[in-house]
């Protein structure tokens, strides 16, 4: 890896790059799924290549190849410079990067049990056991279970002398029970939607999740939803389970704090942000009990947004985003930090693979825990709804108006759960919603969730992000919106 990377750097500089960095990346994946008693997918893939990012004549260029021959590496580095020179035709200001010191380091994410060493037969047996438990419940028409393992190995070198080698192993696991009855399709997922739970961890995650043990309850809920009452429409106090709250954080805090979005870089696709620069340090984003951080450090937990260095060689950091409800921080890169006069990048740049440039991506954007248990929170709620596990999600292109649907809800009356609700939805405006938060459960109820499929950029890239959350309550939220028309 190092020889290719250094060669690409040398060629880029010889061709006129004032700055260059190179990533050589190898990604291995094993994906196993079952459906209704049979293996559905059993596949392995490996993809490796090299991406060269340069600044030449004050503008950016990038080229990537999977051909790691000397001639191809030279050609790719030269191509990156040529592309930068083309960019310079439409350049208003030269690229300026916030300073960063050179780093030579190596980091391997902790992984107790390498999932690639777990026999495939063991994995399939587990999935088929889950499947059998799901289909034991009459009314389940589709049972699906998944295990998803990835190993990301990367060498980063830069013209500033950095040389950083990192290895991350990620594991994902989950299942879904779907039930069709009459004119309705209901489903329940465990431990979360989007394929389940994902962390930067080994197979030990699968062992922690108790997939077989949870399957009967989830299957029964999928079928019971047909008999449940429709979620009412109106204004209610809303308690969100931690999995759903993780996605709420992702969409209505994580994305708007991406500084490249604020500055207009994503205007043609993913959109912009309502968090314009004058709001930093001024906007009461949320109620005073709300504290949010973007924390990529391993101390925060084995999230999908955990690493030692980002893809610009900037060390992982914990960046306060919302402190006592006040908006205090963005996710930044070296270029965007410089653009707003910040002394350093917050280390949030990551690329999906060797053939993509790094973009500002959420790390682990987490709501810090409060106090108390979910049971205590429910007991202190007179008239509300508890919603769990995402089913639909949508937000406008500046991150104000959102609407979410969950798989299941429960009505709360006078501090007690009374009945199951189906097709729950809720909607709001981001800052109004977060300012209505009046209770957050404690650390015992806090989970660091993984969202494996966050999309951004052109050409599009997918990235894993982490979101820690405990259940929390929000007052006077519009619920039942999607079915009321």
């Amino acid at each position, binding site marked *: 890896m190092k020889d290719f990377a250094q060669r690409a750097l040398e060629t880029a500089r010889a061709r006129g790059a004032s700055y260059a960095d190179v990533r050589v990346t190898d990604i291995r994946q094993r994906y196993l799924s079952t459906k209704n008693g049979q293996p559905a997918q*059993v596949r392995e893939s490996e993809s490796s290549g090299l991406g060269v990012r340069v600044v030449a004549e004050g503008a950016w260029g990038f080229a990537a190849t999977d051909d790691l021959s000397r001639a191809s590496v030279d050609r790719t580095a030269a191509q990156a410079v040529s592309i930068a020179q083309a960019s310079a035709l439409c350049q208003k200001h030269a690229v300026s990067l916030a300073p960063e010191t050179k780093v030579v380091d190596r980091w391997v994410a902790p992984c107790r049990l390498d999932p690639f060493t777990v026999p495939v037969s063991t994995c399939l047996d587990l999935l088929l056991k889950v499947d059998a438990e799901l289909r034991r419940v009459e009314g389940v028409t589709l049972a699906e279970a998944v295990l998803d393992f990835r190993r990301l190995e990367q060498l980063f070198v830069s013209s500033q002398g950095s040389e950083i080698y990192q290895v991350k192993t990620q594991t994902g696991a989950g299942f879904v029970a779907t039930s069709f009855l009459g004119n309705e399709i209901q489903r329940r997922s465990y431990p979360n939607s989007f394929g389940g739970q994902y962390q930067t961890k080994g197979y030990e995650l699968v062992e922690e999740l108790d997939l077989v043990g949870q399957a009967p309850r989830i299957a029964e809920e999928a079928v019971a939803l047909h008999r449940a009452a429709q979620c009412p429409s109106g204004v209610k106090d809303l308690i969100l389970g931690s999995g759903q709250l993780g996605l709420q954080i992702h969409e209505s805090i994580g994305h708007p704090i991406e500084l490249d979005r604020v500055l207009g870089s994503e205007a043609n696709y993913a959109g912009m942000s309502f968090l314009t620069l004058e709001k930093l340090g001024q906007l009461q984003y949320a109620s005073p009990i709300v504290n949010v951080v973007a924390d990529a450090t391993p101390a925060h937990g084995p999230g999908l947004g955990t690493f030692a260095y980002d893809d610009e060689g900037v060390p992982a950091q914990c960046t306060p985003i919302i402190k006592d409800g006040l908006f205090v921080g963005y996710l930044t890169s070296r270029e965007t930090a410089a653009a707003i006069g910040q002394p350093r990048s917050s280390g949030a740049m990551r690329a999906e693979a060797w053939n993509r440039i790094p973009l500002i991506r959420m790390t682990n954007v987490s709501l810090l825990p409060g106090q108390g248990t979910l049971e205590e929170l429910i007991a202190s709620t007179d008239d509300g709804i508890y919603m769990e596990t995402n089913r639909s999600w949508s937000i406008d292109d500046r991150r104000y108006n959102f609407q979410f649907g969950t798989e299941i809800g429960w009505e709360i009356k006078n501090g007690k759960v009374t009945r199951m609700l189906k097709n729950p939805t809720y909607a709001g405006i981001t800052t109004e919603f977060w300012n209505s938060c009046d209770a957050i459960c404690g650390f015992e109820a806090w989970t660091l969730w993984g969202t494996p499929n966050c999309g951004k950029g052109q050409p599009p890239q997918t990235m894993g992000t982490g979101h820690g959350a405990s259940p929390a309550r929000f007052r006077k939220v519009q619920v039942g919106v999607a079915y009321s028309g």
Partner: protein
Amino acid sequence: MLTRQHAEEIFAKVLKYSTADETEAIISSTAYALTRFANNTIHQNVAEEGGALSVRVVLDRRMARASTNKFDEASIRQTCEAALTLARLQPPDPELLPMPGPQTFRAVHRFHKETAQLTPQARAETVRQVIARAEKDGLTAAGIFSSGCFAMGLFNSRGLAAFHDETVSEFSVTMLGESSSGWAKKTSPNCRELQPEALADRAARKALESREPREIEPGKYTVILEPAAVLDLLGYLFSDFAGLAIHEKRSCLTGRVGQQVFGANINVRDDVYHPRQSGAPFDGEGVPRQRVTLIEQGVVKGVVYARQTAHKTGAEPTGHGLPLPNEIGETPVNIVMEGGRTSIQEMIRSTKRGLLVTRLWYIREVDPYQKILTGMTRDGTFWIEDGKVQYGLRNLRFNQSIIEMLGQVEMMSPPERAAGEETFDMVVPAMKVRDFSFSSLTKF
């Protein structure tokens, strides 16, 4: 770029290393570049080239797939061995069909040399002109200009050999004003058809004409949806026209095949051979794609089937299967919807009160059987009154069943190739729809 001969040579090596009963390989290569601009500057400019080899093996009805992005001998051998190892660990599937034999394909010509050879300098020059157009009106431009080519060969040990190559190009532009925005986008295998300056002009006019947007109350309104808006809604419907989805009861068409589900003016087919379509004339197993009528005069007429699903359900395969193994089965990917003869301008003139919508955004499925979708308007939403566009509107959220919507279509334009952001390109008309349900507003 991969040639058919090179793909065949690679497959020959795959056969050398595979000891399976049956072996299939999908061999592909991509060369792609994208120039991205924002704030009237090119801020990202990228290019990539790479290949992929995906090997599927069947050993005593046990199947697995392994992939690599390398074509050297050692990588081919390792990939074959990985697939064989995985296959041996499977239980046998008694319903697994043998791979298909040799097929005959109808040719489609979607490779344009000029598009394949478009340079970053040429893209930058086009972007420079678009930026100049933005600056003329005090607007900020953001967008992309991309081009590239890909080639794919699919071969199996029973003698099937399929090859397809194609160029791609795309121009998308958002024009931003102080209080408004406009958008336009086009894709084509032939970059000459993009007409970036015309797209820039259209987006700029939308931004200028929707300045100082006003609010309307949420409710049900007549809407005129431009083709990109229609496309991004329809994208959530057509994966339900799949045999396996219906068989497994996860489709909104479960129990509805053969019924009048949509308005009598709705006619849709899947047709890879349409001159405005893209893609290969064969599916993920190398079976030739057939034209399939999906909706005829509002009746759910046809559904697509992979070989395996057809075998399971007693239907005939239609050449829409995804590469095996997969959980989905099959999906239509070349949607062509018939339209009418009414232009968007005529639709506007015929509207007493309603909205004109350029595009929709962040569309998600709220209910999988009623097919209620939610999303936002974006980049050019207008109020129409007494047959004229009156002013721009603040964007709105909708919650609308697409099944109901397709029963409320009053007018359609001639269809055109459209591109959005939520789904693959389609050939679709603009539509005037009554009683489209908006549930809330946003702040811009």
